[in-house]
């Protein structure tokens, strides 16, 4: 699992896995593990996007004229 990663980090990792499958470093022996990781990341990203909300806060400072 990768709970501590941001959505962006998870998407970057998924992109790297996708590139690995298309690239020269591809090894059939590792493919199963990589495919499982890609599926896991996809689920996590989807879950994050559907559940994480934005944290909107007002700055505790007045910008009015002194």
């Amino acid at each position, binding site marked *: 699992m990768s709970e501590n990663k941001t959505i962006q980090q998870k998407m970057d990792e998924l992109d790297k*896995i996708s590139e690995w*499958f298309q690239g020269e470093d591809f090894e*059939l022996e590792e493919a199963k593990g990589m495919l499982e990781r890609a599926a896991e990341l996809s689920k996590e990203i989807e879950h*994050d*996007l559907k559940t994480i909300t*934005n944290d909107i806060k007002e700055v505790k400072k007045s*910008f009015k004229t002194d």
Partner: protein
Amino acid sequence: MTPRFSVGDFIAVTNQAFENIYPAVEIEGEVASFKVNQGKYVFFDLKDAEGSVNCFMMVYQLRVPIEDGMKVVVSAAPKLTQWGKFSLTVKSVQPSGEGSLKKSFELLKAKLAQEGLFALERKRPLPQLPEKIAVISSMQAAGYADFVKIINDRWGGLDVQVANVTVQGSEAPDQIIRALRYFNTTDDQPEIIVIIRGGGSADDLSAFNDELLVREIAASRVPVITGIGHEVDESLSDLAADVQASTPSNVAQIIVPDKREIIANVRATVSEILPSVEAFVARLKDRVQGALDRNIELAESRVKYTEENYTRLKKMLYELSPDRVLERGYALLRGGDLNVGSIVSIETAGNIIKARIESNERK
């Protein structure tokens, strides 16, 4: 009893009376005899059909360009000078009426464009997936509500800091400038600064044509995106920003992607992996089959060669066999010694003959 003053006291009492009567006053009129002395002092007359008053202000207080003939509203304090001249000490000037607003806008636009503040080379791209953004807006404004709705609908996990400022009137430019300075100097610096305001009249939006504000936006270290007014509105703040969106909602659409599109893309990425593995396996299978086919072909060729060799050798051996020699007319002589009178056995292809040796001479 009629009051009696010294001249100085009279001037002081008069000014005190002005302060009491007009603690703050706005006067609308047309600018005439506009001039700047020593690069610091601004003098002009404010007039209408009924009269004219002298005006004085410092050049740094003049936040929008003005020139003779423009209709303006001045915020000022009436004052009697020590030389007995009546004048208005002006705190701020705002163009008034569509014509003057447009004229002022064009004058400042030309000036700042000349300085390169709107140059495309200055524009910086926004980060693709920001995590920390700053918003400068009135939190009561409809435009702000639109922005929040769209951004919450499209994306999650954002840290959004909002500077609640007024976005209309003479106070607005300074408040926005302070908010810009705050976000540019805070330890927790945002990746993008968003300046938004919903639609309004040209006068409502004129705060965003303030020269100091436009310069502050251009000087911001953090990239700035603006969404001010409606699609048709254009302010000098928009021109100085790194990215100009048409509305507050459009700002939200530009700075974050739509999570529904991202989910679809992520699903597509994963679903495209399996076919690529299958294609790899198919290529591997083809290579193995090819190698196998080549080896079988080679083995068959070797077997055939060996068979042909065997047949040739067999034929050669057959040709060399004694029976085949006898068939060609030769005879095989068998016997003990070859002395005259000895009996020998002679074998031909068809017969075995016993014969006595009559003579035996060397060749």
